[in-house]
């Protein structure tokens, strides 16, 4: 009987979590305002309890899926008894209700983690951070309980079997893509909470930024991996070989990534140099707000997208309210409490400070560009000016040049010193790298393909311009050490994180430039015995067979591929599947991945007479896209592991106390 009650236990656990979140939202803030240590101390235990109870609720929903409890509406609509167990497990977050629950679980998880690593942060600061996290959690738990209860029952008429998980989502990529993405989105709530707490407490010094930096880097790394996984998934699952569609939902994940990237850099300036304080706070608020807005855009169905969840105006309205309250309140707090006179910290225009400011400006321009392109159709529609859709041409036309110009500053920024640097020194450091980047960039397309392509050259020049000056910088920095290894050891993990992250950007740029321009695609009619030649590979269809999977029927082509006349042979097996429960046809792509090229074969449609329309593609360097993203994320992780943040625990609370008493509190006066 206990098993039958699992959904109710989950529901009940959610309600308890909500109550704890409410206490967490009120007591620590009230305590900080009235200077009552006992009230302030409520924050951490509540964060722990709330995480525990949401975890229980989440486990209950997972159990309902695993046990095929089709009396739970959510399970009946998104699972099926034939579904393999691992997809039952991941189907929990393949739908609206379950994914909001996962989102809340992660939010509580980040809050709990933040409550554990507060070290020597001032007590009232911790209390405020916990309070803000609590408020965000209250919002999401209310959203679940009021509009999106995953434990709703279909009683007494429970269906015999479930409607099945959308076949597009029955895939490893989908098992990992949303959790990573949500970890990123939600992770920015920590830096948001720090920023708001700093505003409320008037502690807008450099100290909070040191605390927030590792959290921000971690969230950013997760978001980077999440976006890359989404792109990879679309590439092999959707069957036409694209990896980025400028779809509103993709844009929704790109927006917080762009401001998050700006935030990562601006936090560095604020921590090291004490400048850009207000700007950093504003970026922290914007990044989390854009994460929330992304959620709204995806869940409300306001924009048409391949990702759209079931549209329900009540949900859209609730999330919009949540978004409006969060963003308006935080911007109001910002407007009222941001320091009136920014503490002037001088820097030369030729300095890392200035170049990071330029980087921030470019990232913000990119954000605005993407945001405009995404909401423009909606605004036109609202004003009755017609229905349009802003497609890739708009985004590419603006995004590509902006990226190229930003790369120029990136190459400069990573090797420039803080505060000021003589132009002559910079020139000495850079001229060789610049010449090498130009020459190699122009020559490489010729060597690779024998024909010159402006965009490929631009991409390679940009990438080399990012990498080469850094390589030189590493040599300069290690030159005076007794040995190269000793020199490498001396450099901090944050520095290596920066190097790795920037190399990641360069690798991604090379991937984008090459695959966008040198992609070869052939749409051909094939039947057993047909051979097609694409980019020096012979694709021969050997036979067409049918097979039965756990919950689908498939037409499979057996394609033998040989490179040239002598190369090794291998078999590729693209499929066209028909999922039985939903009647949805799906293309299962056959891929032969490689570091320098992918071979990509997808089955189109049955043309009758025993032949099929097939799409055969040769995609050079496509792996570099995601490899670069992984490097970027690893860079972020390396920076998190830097010893400095652990030592800083003792160090910075002293300095934050000091700077607090030194600087007049303009904001609170």
């Amino acid at each position, binding site marked *: 009987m206990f098993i039958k009650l699992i959904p109710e236990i989950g529901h009940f656990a959610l309600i308890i979590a909500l109550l704890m979140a409410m206490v967490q939202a009120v007591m620590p803030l009230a305590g900080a305002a009235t200077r009552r240590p006992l009230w302030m101390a409520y924050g951490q235990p509540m964060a722990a309890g709330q995480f525990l109870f949401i975890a229980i609720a989440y486990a209950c929903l997972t159990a309902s899926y695993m046990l095929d409890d089709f009396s739970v509406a959510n399970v009946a609509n998104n699972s099926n008894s034939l579904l393999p167990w691992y997809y039952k497990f991941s189907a929990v977050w393949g739908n609206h209700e379950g994914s909001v629950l996962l989102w809340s679980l992660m939010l509580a998880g980040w809050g709990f983690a933040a409550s554990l690593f507060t070290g020597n942060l001032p007590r009232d600061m911790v209390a405020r951070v916990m309070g803000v996290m609590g408020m965000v959690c209250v919002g999401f738990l209310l959203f679940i309980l009021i509009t999106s209860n995953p434990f709703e029952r279909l009683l007494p008429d429970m269906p015999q079997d479930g409607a099945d998980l959308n076949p597009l989502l029955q895939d490893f990529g989908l098992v990992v893509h949303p959790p990573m993405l949500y970890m990123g989105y939600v992770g920015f709530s920590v830096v948001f909470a720090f920023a708001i707490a700093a505003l409320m407490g008037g502690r807008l010094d450099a100290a909070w930024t040191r605390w927030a930096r590792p959290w921000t880097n971690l969230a950013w790394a997760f978001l980077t991996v999440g976006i890359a996984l989404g792109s990879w998934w679309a590439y092999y699952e959707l069957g036409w070989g694209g990896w980025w569609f400028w779809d509103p939902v993709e844009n929704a994940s790109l927006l917080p990534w762009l401001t998050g990237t700006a935030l990562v850099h601006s936090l560095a300036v604020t921590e090291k140099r004490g400048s850009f304080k207000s700007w950093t706070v*504003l970026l922290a608020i914007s990044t989390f*707000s854009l994460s929330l807005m992304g959620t*709204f855009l995806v869940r*409300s*169905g*306001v*924009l*048409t997208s391949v990702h759209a969840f079931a*549209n329900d*105006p009540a949900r*859209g*309205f609730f999330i*919009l309210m949540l*978004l*409006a309250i969060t*963003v*308006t309140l935080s*911007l*109001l707090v*910002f*407007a*009222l409490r*941001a320091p*009136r006179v920014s503490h002037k910290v001088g820097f030369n225009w030729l300095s890392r400070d200035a170049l990071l400011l330029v980087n921030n400006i470019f990232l913000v321009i990119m954000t605005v560009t993407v945001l405009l392109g995404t*909401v423009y159709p*909606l*605004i036109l*529609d*609202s004003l009755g000016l017609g*229905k349009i*859709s802003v497609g890739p041409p708009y985004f590419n036309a603006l995004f590509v040049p902006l990226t190229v110009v930003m790369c120029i500053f990136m190459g400069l920024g990573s090797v420039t010193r803080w505060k000021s640097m003589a132009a002559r020194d910079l020139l000495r450091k850079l001229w060789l790298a610049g010449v090498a980047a130009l020459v190699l960039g122009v020559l490489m397309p010729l060597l690779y393909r024998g024909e010159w392509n402006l965009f490929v050259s631009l991409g390679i020049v940009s990438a080399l311009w990012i990498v080469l000056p850094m390589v030189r910088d590493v040599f300069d920095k290690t030159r005076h050490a007794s040995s190269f290894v000793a020199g490498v050891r001396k450099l901090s993990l944050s520095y290596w994180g920066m190097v790795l992250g920037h190399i990641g950007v360069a690798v991604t740029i090379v991937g984008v430039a090459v695959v966008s321009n040198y992609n070869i695609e052939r749409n051909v009619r094939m039947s057993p015995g047909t051979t097609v030649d694409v980019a020096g590979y012979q694709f021969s269809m050997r036979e067409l067979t049918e097979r039965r999977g756990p919950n689908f*029927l498939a037409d499979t082509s057996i394609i033998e591929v040989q490179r040239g006349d002598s190369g090794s042979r291998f078999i590729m097996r693209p499929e066209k599947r*028909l999922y039985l429960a*939903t*009647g*949805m*046809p799906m293309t299962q792509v056959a891929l032969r991945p490689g570091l320098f090229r992918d071979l990509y074969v997808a089955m189109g*449609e*049955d*043309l*009758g007479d025993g032949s099929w329309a097939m799409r055969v593609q040769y995609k050079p360097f496509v792996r570099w896209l995601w490899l670069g993203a992984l490097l970027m994320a690893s860079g972020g992780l390396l920076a998190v592991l830097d010893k400095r943040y652990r030592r800083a625990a003792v160090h910075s609370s002293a300095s934050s106390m000091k700077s607090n008493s030194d600087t007049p509190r303009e904001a609170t006066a």
Partner: protein
Amino acid sequence: MKRRLLLLLLPVGFLGLALFFYHGLSLDPSQRDSALMAREFPAFEATTLRDEAQQVDQSLLKGEVTLVNVWGEWCPACKQEMPQLLELADHDIRMIGVNYRDTREKGLEFLSEFGDPFETNIFDPEGALGFDLGVYGAPETFLVDADGVIRYHHKGYVSPEDVRERILPEVEKWR
């Protein structure tokens, strides 16, 4: 003071955006569904599946609310949705088929095997009309009103629930 006022523009600006979002919520999602929504059915000239000599064009779709179903013998999901289409025809809804990228022989074989809910079938062996309709694959179903304007677009297999919950209400709405 000036700077504070300037900063206050931030929340105000955001609220403006939120208003658009709010309005967006009340817009009919089906209207955003397809680029062809609320446009006239594209012009075409074709023969019918049964008769090579009979020419039809877009005027075929005027005068009455019509469901246009794009199908082909090669498409397994089309076979599965035939019972639902026959049910729709039983509701006295005028049905026109577009035989998409198929041969006459196979198309007619399909109709004799799975039933024929269609008043007429437009023969589209090259997929020219399908292209103008923005069809991704078969099956796809369009609702065209009495003026020949596309009002609803259903991508993929039509399930019995789709018939009850989407298609019949839409047909009622435009009749």
